[in-house]
């Protein structure tokens, strides 16, 4: 089996006095989408932030594309080819949509063909190109945050709960966009919305109390309702 694109082995992360990640191990194979599931407070966001270098792991090994990235500074990790869409979206509200996207393109002005591709599934970005990001709706901010992550091709995209607080119609749109994205890059998605995750994910890892409690193919989990209830604590129906 080929080496996975990203792997975590026995990763521990402390935030202040709290021990959040308590030995997390999982791998993200190259291509497709891996979904990280788990209850609130299980440590999913902390796992993404630790991969991104925004929290420093206190123990364990993180490898990306063959190189150890644990302890590296955030900008270096980003330059290694990882893009990040945080839960808060973190769009620069004082900057326009154009400026937000231009900044995300590190190597120069954004490629027009690439922008057209983004506009094809996020047409709002084209409409509001010159509008300050602060005036966008929640869904549009999410689209902008994702556009920023993909304006240049990156090897891995970390996305933290893109459906949070979005209307169902917009979530449907998101599914289309992610299908498109999956074709060219690898995505690690943190999600609470199981139906969204199940419709997109190829692989799945489930976290609880700072550890990985299950890892495998998404199809297997989606088909096994008993396992869902056991791992996620909630049945599919009540989780929407």
């Amino acid at each position, binding site marked *: 089996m080929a080496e996975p694109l990203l792997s975590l082995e026995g990763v521990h992360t402390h935030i202040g006095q709290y021990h959040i990640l308590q030995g997390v191990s999982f791998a993200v194979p190259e291509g497709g989408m891996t979904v990280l599931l788990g209850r609130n407070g299980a440590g999913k966001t902390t796992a993404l932030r630790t991969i991104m270098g925004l929290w420093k792991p206190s123990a364990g090994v993180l490898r990306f594309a063959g190189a150890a990235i644990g302890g590296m500074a955030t900008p270096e990790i980003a330059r290694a080819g990882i893009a990040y869409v945080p839960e*808060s979206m*973190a769009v620069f509200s*004082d*900057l326009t949509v154009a400026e937000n996207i231009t900044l995300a393109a*590190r190597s120069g002005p954004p490629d027009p063909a690439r922008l057209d591709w983004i506009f094809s*599934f996020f047409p709002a970005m084209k409409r509001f190109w010159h509008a300050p990001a602060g005036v966008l709706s929640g*869904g549009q901010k999410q689209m902008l945050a994702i556009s920023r992550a993909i304006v240049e091709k990156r090897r891995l995209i970390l996305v933290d709960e893109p459906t949070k607080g979005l209307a169902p119609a917009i979530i449907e749109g998101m599914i289309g966009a992610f299908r498109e994205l999956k074709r060219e890059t690898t995505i690690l998605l943190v999600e609470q919305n199981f139906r969204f995750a199940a419709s997109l994910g190829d692989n799945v890892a489930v976290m609880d109390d700072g550890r990985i409690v299950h890892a495998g193919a998404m199809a297997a989990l989606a088909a096994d309702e008993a396992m869902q209830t056991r791992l996620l604590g909630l049945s599919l129906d009540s989780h929407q």
Partner: protein
Amino acid sequence: MTDQAATRTGAADAIPQARLDLIPLALPVALAGLAFLLIGTPTTWLTLTLAALAMGMMIFVIASGLTLVFGLMDVINFGHGAFIAVGAYLAMTVLGPLAPLVQADSLMLNLAALALAALVATFGAGALGLAFERVVIRPVYGQHLKQILITMGGLIIAEQLLHAIFGGDQKAMALPTAFRGAIVVGDLAFEKFRLLAVAIGLVVFLAMQLTLNRTRIGLLIRAGVENSEMVEALGYRIRRLFVGVFAAGSALAGLGGVLWALYRETFTAAIGSEVMVLVFIVIIIGGLGSVGGCFLGAILVAMMANYTAFLAPKVALASSILLMVAILMWRPQGLYPVAKR
């Protein structure tokens, strides 16, 4: 499907625009108008207003770097005044041997001497800023309490060192010939140096606005002020950006120090601490991290200082405090609060 989503979110509308917040801009106009009524004589009012604009520009030049440094990295440098003093002493050192140029009756020669002095002061203070950031700020990065204490300690040391090197006596700084006196138009007198200060302040402001709005570095600074973590996650090394902004801010303080020393015509190493009180008031009024707010705040504080110095001289500085309190009651984060993550 995506189209459907987009039409719903975009709900048949024009492109939304940022809400332009114009009320603060009316404040200096209102203040000038009120002062006009209270002062009564238009010529006096005009002189005071020009003086206020000149003073405001000088304070802006000094304060702009400080407010950006705070916005970008949450670092407040109580030792900023040291760069003002360093600028003044460096300019004095350069202008001393250039006395023939300074005293010559030629605008070009005067300007050349002044430009050289300003250049040395600006770059000198900027270089010192780099060292200060490395030695004083970096070890206590992210610790507010220590930052305040250490930078204050740095200020004491810098002032004492300046006195040890240049002597503790009061220094004189003569205005070049071409900038003495006033341009008289009918009844109205415009002091030349004040016009120069206004011009320099405007140039700095415009250059800064252009940099912030039209260059990649500027975009990064604005983005960093809002959310420095995300800027890092996009792959930019914000530390380098911060060091650059810190050095630029120190350099501007040095330039401001030259102007302020020329304006006052005498100074000691305490020149920095004197101005810093006004500078702090200005950046608080403007909203910490906001360059536009800093510009407006500087004009407001300077107007208040100059008008009250004429109307009620004994309470001049206290009036700035009242202005600050009034503005904070209205907008607790300052005139233009900076959106923070």
